[in-house]
């Protein structure tokens, strides 16, 4: 009858930012711009009842509820990207062409329980 204690806030599902500089990976001689990229990722848990606030949809709320009742039978919902952004990269290719390329779904902006 008593809801389990909620984990510490920094352990619940949320985006984590990670910036990678192209100079660090040795690609700064052929990538003109930008200087690096965001390799954000989602991490954290989706426990009951917090799942109701973590950008969760109904099935995830039900799943977290069932996990709280029978953890062995039902796993917790997953913390995954739910909003992504594209990036554009300007670089030289092997043919000495200058290339501007657009990449979809490259940066994680938001995470949610699913």
């Amino acid at each position, binding site marked *: 009858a008593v809801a389990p204690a909620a984990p510490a806030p920094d352990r619940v599902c949320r985006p984590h930012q990670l910036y990678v500089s192209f100079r660090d*990976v*040795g*690609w700064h001689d*052929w990538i003109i711009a930008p200087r690096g990229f965001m390799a954000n990722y989602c991490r954290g848990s989706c426990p009951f009842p917090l799942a109701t606030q973590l950008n969760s949809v109904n099935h995830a709320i039900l799943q977290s509820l069932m996990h709280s009742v029978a953890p062995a039978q039902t796993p917790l919902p997953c913390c995954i990207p739910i909003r992504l952004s594209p990036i554009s*990269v300007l670089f*030289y290719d092997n043919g000495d*062409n200058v290339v*501007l*390329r657009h990449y979809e779904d*490259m940066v994680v902006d938001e995470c949610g329980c699913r």
Partner: protein
Amino acid sequence: LTPGLGRAQPGPLSPQAVALLRALGLSEPPAPRQPRPVPPLLWRLFRKSQEKLAAAKETQEPEGAEGPEQAQPCHVEELGVPGNIVRLVPDRGGSVQLEEPALPPLCAEKPLFFNLSALAPEEQPTLVRLELHLGPAGAQGPPGPGWELSLSLAPGPQLWGRQAHWHHRQLLLTQPLPPGRDTIHLDLLDLGPVGASPLPRNLSLVLEILHGSGGDGNGTEAACASLGRSLEASLLVVTLHPQQCRPVARRRR
């Protein structure tokens, strides 16, 4: 990240580097021979794409909510065509000085070679534009009326130079040289093999600049000399990679 991700140290690429390059549509890190100045157009397109991305983030609405139409993810607004890859391909033909008339009324005959092997077969060309830059204007200023451009498909490399006769060429277009302009754009999409997808791996063209001065050889020579310019060419190619561009999801009504 460990330095082994890129090519900071000699040796094979790390699996992570291979995966990231593949995500960028590349098989290995390019090794440009010498960094070239970045064309202003591509800088402008890059900055505009950054502004668009920042604006899209600021106006982010919750998922599924009604709101203004999303910006086209794979559309080059400034050029007005769909596409997610913009390349500026340098000309590898020899340079030519325009004050040395080839054969009146022909002022100049310039071979144009473009290496298009970097394009993947599944990339669909949506813009192929030949950009001609006439060198710094002489005292006479930009060219006046009476000039004409002729662009042909060159014979294959095996014929060029030894047996290349004009009838081996396939005329693609002729048009007056727009008076008063130093930069000329010729749209080649749908001309000859350039309209076909995939594009040829090598595109060989011949550009001729003629001056119609009424058959007067001396007039032509003087006109050619008056042009006194160098001519540089590059090819702007915009392509759409269908697997990397999903159509814009229609909003629920």
